């Protein structure tokens, strides 16, 4: 039986807008994902630590505070440092198109704006992060 896709839904920085993160988390859970929600006001360090500990296939970061151009790159950098650079980093929020493009070029996955259906997000994660954890558990196992 296929292992369930594990996703860390994370809220970074001071932003308290959690309606979207909670709706997406609920939809992922109903779609059969295992969802871990960090809660609010996490630093990039806390998020990446949780991603490592929970052995997730994807990190879905929600940012509506305008701080996406500092927080996404920082989370990505830390993920690479901690050896989980192969885990998908995706997310959503109030992010202008140009910034989405710039973040994609840095290695962040698809980012989703207002009006996105949860189905689109779920389909994307299914496609972009399958088996990520399975291939990584061997690596992680030897490192521990």
């Amino acid at each position, binding site marked *: 039986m296929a292992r369930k896709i594990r996703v860390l839904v994370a809220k970074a920085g001071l932003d308290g807008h959690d309606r979207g993160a909670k*709706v997406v988390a609920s939809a992922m859970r109903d779609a059969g994902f295992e969802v871990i929600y960090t*809660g609010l006001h996490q630093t990039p360090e806390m998020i990446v630590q949780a991603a490592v500990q929970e052995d997730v296939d994807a990190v879905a970061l929600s940012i509506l505070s305008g701080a996406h151009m500092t927080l996404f790159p920082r989370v990505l950098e830390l993920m690479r440092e901690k050896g989980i650079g192969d885990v998908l980093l995706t997310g959503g929020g109030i992010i202008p198109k140009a910034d989405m493009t710039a973040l994609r070029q840095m290695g962040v996955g698809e980012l989703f704006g207002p009006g996105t259906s*949860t189905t689109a997000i779920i389909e994307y994660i299914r496609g972009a992060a399958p088996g990520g954890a399975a291939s990584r558990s061997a690596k992680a196992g030897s490192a521990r």
Partner: protein
Amino acid sequence: MANAARTETATERAKRETSDAETAEAPPALSGGENGAPASPTPLFETLSGIPVKPLYGPVDVKPGLEERLGEPGKFPFTRGLHPEMYRKRLWTMRQFAGFGSAEHTNQRFHYLLAQGMTGLSTAFDMPTLMGYDADHAMAFGEVGREGVAISSLEDMEILFRGIPLDQVTTSMTINAPAVVLLAMYVAVAEKQGIGAEKLGGTVQADMLKEFIAQKEWICPPRPSVKICVDMIEWCAKHMPKWNSISISGYHIREAGATAVQELAFTIADGIGYVEECVKRGMDVDEFAPRLSFFWDVHNDFFEEIAKFRAGRRIWAKLMRDRFGAKNPRSWQLRTHAQTAGVSLTAQQPLNNVARVAIQALAAVLGGTQSLHTNSMDETLALPTEEAATVALRTQQIIAHETGVTNVVDPFAGSYFVESLTDRMEEEAMSYIRRIDEMGGIIQAVERGFPQKEIADSAYRFQMQVEEGRRTIVGVNRFGGEEEISIPVLKIDPEIERRQIERVRAVRARRDAARWEQAMKDLRDACRSDKNLVPYVLDAVRAYATLGEISDVFREAYGVYREPAVF
């Protein structure tokens, strides 16, 4: 299919929550879509909040005793409005929320908006300020000046209100956890202008209960947070007779996903919570209740919103008179600010938002609001540009001066539909309020996560209705697909963060260290007692103690709140 299963439960829940037997059978699906858009499978004949709506209303839908439930405008229970002549005598205050970047930038925007005919200021603060951090704190990284203006010390506040005589404007400050600090800074700036606190008019939002319920900007846990709110209510009652000591807010509750009924219920439950705490402290209800104010969201469902405003006034009047024994008619009045629903705006086809805002604003006016903010069309993309903010203000001016709706007080009174909806909302909100009372009050309910969970469930239900096409959002799940229209977006210069960090450090280096130290010590001591903290915070800001330093005193004294991460 997982989605289909989910729909069943959502529909069942909606049916369970609506109390009478009006729930109509779902009508047959539309046969085709317009403009190639997918057909709506089953149109929902219900309000945006899930109250079933019949095709026709008549005398049988209005229960006996309507005249008593309505009263006259300006009289108990204020269903028809707070004033006998309403907008004929005085229009609502057009209060546009503004704030971005540095204090200098926002000061310029204030001067611009006042020159355009705006009649009250409304300040948006950035995330670090809202959470009680100075610009140079690690948690402020990347967020300084982004969502509002950055205020770290009294010096920033002096710049923010430069050239604005504070006895000639009223100012609303959207600040909660550190509200006591910003209130003190405002009083201190006025002192420097030679204006006493008794002359100042305006509001600090200062409603911490709705922070735990919905907006999620906090410093300390609920109980000490509410204690500080009550300190402000008490101090303002004595020293600031023209100041609204709190703005009990449904806005954020609604934006987080609540239905109109939940917004009404949880907000009024919060109001009850503050009144109870003030009474426990030994204050007379008529001493402070006239300065309590409210803040509603205005969403798309036109009649439901009008009914909500009317029901809210009636519920509050009855509670204050009959439950709390208030004798002053001003204590019975639910005075409210309103803001159009940010959450209803779409990033797709943003020009459509101008129409949404106009309809919502009209509902607030027909509902009898005392002041109004209209959102800018670009707010799902970034903070508003000057042009977008001007269109939003002009929308209010058009309603006020061109439509004629201001000529008649409460024009929907007596409408079978609106009266029936008003009664229905009152009943459903009161049933929630009774449940919260049974839990031991709103503070206990919040600690148990009750309103939080109800809101998250409503948000999820709404999203699923949109995704199934049962709710239409024009330009998003229907009538979309055209070329994307791009509109100009306000950019915040990252330089602002660097300059703000320099400024707060310079203030710390320059201030009178001995005076600062004494004020900080006095504040720390006061936090260990039951004393009202306002005078101590006032002394601290006069000594240029920063917002972050004062918030740290609260963190040490009362602890830091962490929310259980549930969804």
